[in-house]
């Protein structure tokens, strides 16, 4: 958030420990919250479910990305299994809802819980191995979970490996359009965001960071590595499970093809582009990865049509591949401009305006 910090002195511990210490920051947070809450209103007036669906997709991806960032960015444990942990959450929710008639909120929490359990289990190798070796171990998690869903009919729901769930409803409200689904997702997004922000500045968060920076040193200063590494896996997988369950209720189907290895890598890309070890960065990364292909799709086609008079159908193959090229190029550009991610880029913007117009 944009703020100026000069002249802020805390006189008590309470003020010092607040999540946002500056008045301007508090106003900015309230403003953002207001915008997020009122966002569907103008879109609903225009009947534009399209933009709302994009926002929903981004919010869903953000939850998963924040979770992965806790594990990768804060604790330094590389994981290639985020997609699989999302699948665990998604299928748990779908089984509970469709077979046992549980309400959606229970499905989401149970999905998170189940994913946390499975994530902890697959996190055990992290106690002995780290870095690329751990990445390969989590890759195994991805493959094992995918295989299990595909070949155990009770979990996967038969040959199609997909389970339909009913449209979620809560106190008589049916989440049957994009605007309503937005609020459903927003609640969990805000909980995830604020939860992560608080987690990383707590004792637990500091332990995570200590492990990331040097696990031997962390152990010497009294951090219980066994506990905190597994805790990082549990928390991260819980986020993934919640995201997967929400994604299931959003589509109203649990299907493993939403949670393949490609998806895991996509989440890894999100946090690397957004900024490792930054909650805001996870969200920015999710926006980048999810929004950019859509924006490119729309702009490239309309530019080709309006500027060059080329109609889509004649050069569709070229335009579709050109977008991929642009997408790849933009990832490289953003990473080389600021290797520490979009969150750092945002910091740079703020720093520039802090001294503006009298920069030295």
């Amino acid at each position, binding site marked *: 958030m944009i703020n100026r910090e000069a002249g802020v002195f805390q006189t008590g511990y309470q003020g010092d420990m607040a999540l946002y210490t500056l008045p301007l920051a508090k106003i900015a947070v309230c403003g953002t919250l207001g915008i997020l809450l009122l966002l569907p209103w103008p879109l609903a007036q225009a009947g534009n479910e399209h933009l709302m669906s994009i926002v929903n997709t981004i919010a869903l991806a953000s939850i998963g990305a924040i979770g992965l960032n806790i594990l990768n960015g804060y604790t330094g444990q590389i994981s290639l299994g985020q997609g699989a942990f999302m699948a665990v959450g998604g299928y748990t929710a779908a089984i509970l809802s469709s077979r046992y008639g549980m309400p959606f909120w229970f499905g989401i929490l149970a999905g998170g819980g189940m994913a946390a359990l499975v994530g902890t289990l697959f996190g055990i190798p992290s106690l002995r191995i780290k870095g690329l070796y751990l990445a390969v171990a989590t890759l195994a998690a991805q493959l094992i979970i995918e295989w299990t869903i595909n070949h155990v009919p009770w979990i996967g729901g038969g040959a199609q490996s997909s389970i339909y769930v009913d449209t979620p409803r809560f106190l008589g409200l049916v989440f049957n359009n994009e605007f309503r689904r937005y609020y459903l997702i927003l609640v969990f997004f805000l909980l995830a965001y604020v939860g992560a922000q608080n987690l990383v500045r707590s004792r637990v968060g500091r332990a995570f960071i200590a492990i990331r920076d040097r696990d031997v040193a962390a152990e010497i200063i009294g951090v219980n590595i066994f506990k905190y590494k597994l805790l990082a896996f549990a928390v991260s997988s819980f986020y993934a499970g919640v995201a997967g369950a929400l994604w299931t209720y959003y589509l109203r189907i649990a*299907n493993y093809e939403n949670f393949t290895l490609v998806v895991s890598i996509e989440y890894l890309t999100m946090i690397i582009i957004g900024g490792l070890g930054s909650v805001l960065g996870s969200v920015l990364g999710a926006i980048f990865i999810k929004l950019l292909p859509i924006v490119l799709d729309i702009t490239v086609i309309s530019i080709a049509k309006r500027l060059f008079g080329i109609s889509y*159908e004649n050069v*569709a*193959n070229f335009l579709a591949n050109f977008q991929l090229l642009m997408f790849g190029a933009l990832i490289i550009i953003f990473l080389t401009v*600021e290797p520490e991610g979009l969150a750092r880029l945002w910091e740079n913007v703020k720093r520039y305006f802090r001294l503006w117009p009298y920069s030295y």
Partner: protein
Amino acid sequence: MRNWKWLIGLFVCGCVAGVSGTTALADEIVIGGQCDRTGPTKNVGTQLCPGVFDYIKLINKKGGINGHTLRYIEVENAYKVDRGVEAYERLKRDGAVVMLDYGTPIVYALTPRHMEDKLPGLTPGFGRADSTDGQRFPYIFPMAASYWSQMGAAMQYLKDKGGVKKGSKIAYLFYDNPAGREPLGVFKRICDIEGYECRDFAVPAPGVEMSSQLLDITRRMQPEWVVAHLFGKAPSVSIKEFRKNGFPLDKVISLVWGAGEEDMQVAGWDTAQGYLGMQFAGVGRDFPVIQDIIKMYQAENQEVPEHVGWVYYNRGVLTAALIAEGIRLVLEHEGLPVTGEKMQKGFERIKDFTLGGFLPPLTVVRDDHEGGGWVRFYQTKGEKLTPFTDWFRGYRDVVLDEVKKAEKAEKTEDKK
């Protein structure tokens, strides 16, 4: 670091431009479609989607349907579910009354939306086999033989003309994903009914390594026939492996996604001689509709692309033709304005629609959104796919019973 300025400017420009949409003209009927031209099934998409465009253009050249021109909007989804959802919402915003969905996982994800918005979705060759049942899925129209029907037809052929009898050995070679496993139930049931000796062989993704399965089939099991159900690069690999192991390719029946011209090209036409492929649309240029398209190209002094008349191109034409026929029936019986709900009724009026032998005699009713489950075999001869059988179908009772069972399974699941 000043670079961020233009980067952010670029991004904002992109977002602003992205928001602007287009609105439909009064006399136009908007059709939405998704395509995968860059993802894992791009070999299909780059041929199928031009087929849709060309047929719509042909209709518009002829003056549209009852004076109404069609506008076809295509959105690329790259075979990704989130892109598919976005594409669906974008097409809905732009006023599409019917949509062509592309990709099995995307069809799965969009099915509830089609029901919710009462917008029919055409899913030829994609999606779940039990969406044949229009009572349960009123707005989903596969309009082509489902995997169950394909398996039923393959087994019927083996029984009638393949010379198999009780105790004959049949192998099923499939890609180990939901679509690949879907016909397995029908396969096993028919084997039980007829008393064949059957085995199934799974090929794990990405399906380019199957030498052990092929050795198992050709050396140990030595079946009389093989039914293959592979996607992407896998069919061409399987053709080469069968040839390498000396298994006769005219004893291999491929279901619909394993017999495109490109598969033969990759495997080599010489290698693929005799290979039997199943189709739900005609192949080649000897159809009035394909000839019309070729004339349209020639009238504009454009070169006719090589893929006109190819398997996947013709499937695109098939889809577009079905949509056009649905719209024609809506205009005839229901009148303007054309809406999703009316389109659903229009599709269910389609009766004995063949498009000059290009399609099987397709009849769509509420209980059968598949249109009968007709298929036809083509054989690789020279550098062409030549007709091998006429349109036929088989084991309809088994297939329809599977559909019923799927419905029952869902109902008991609801009760629990």
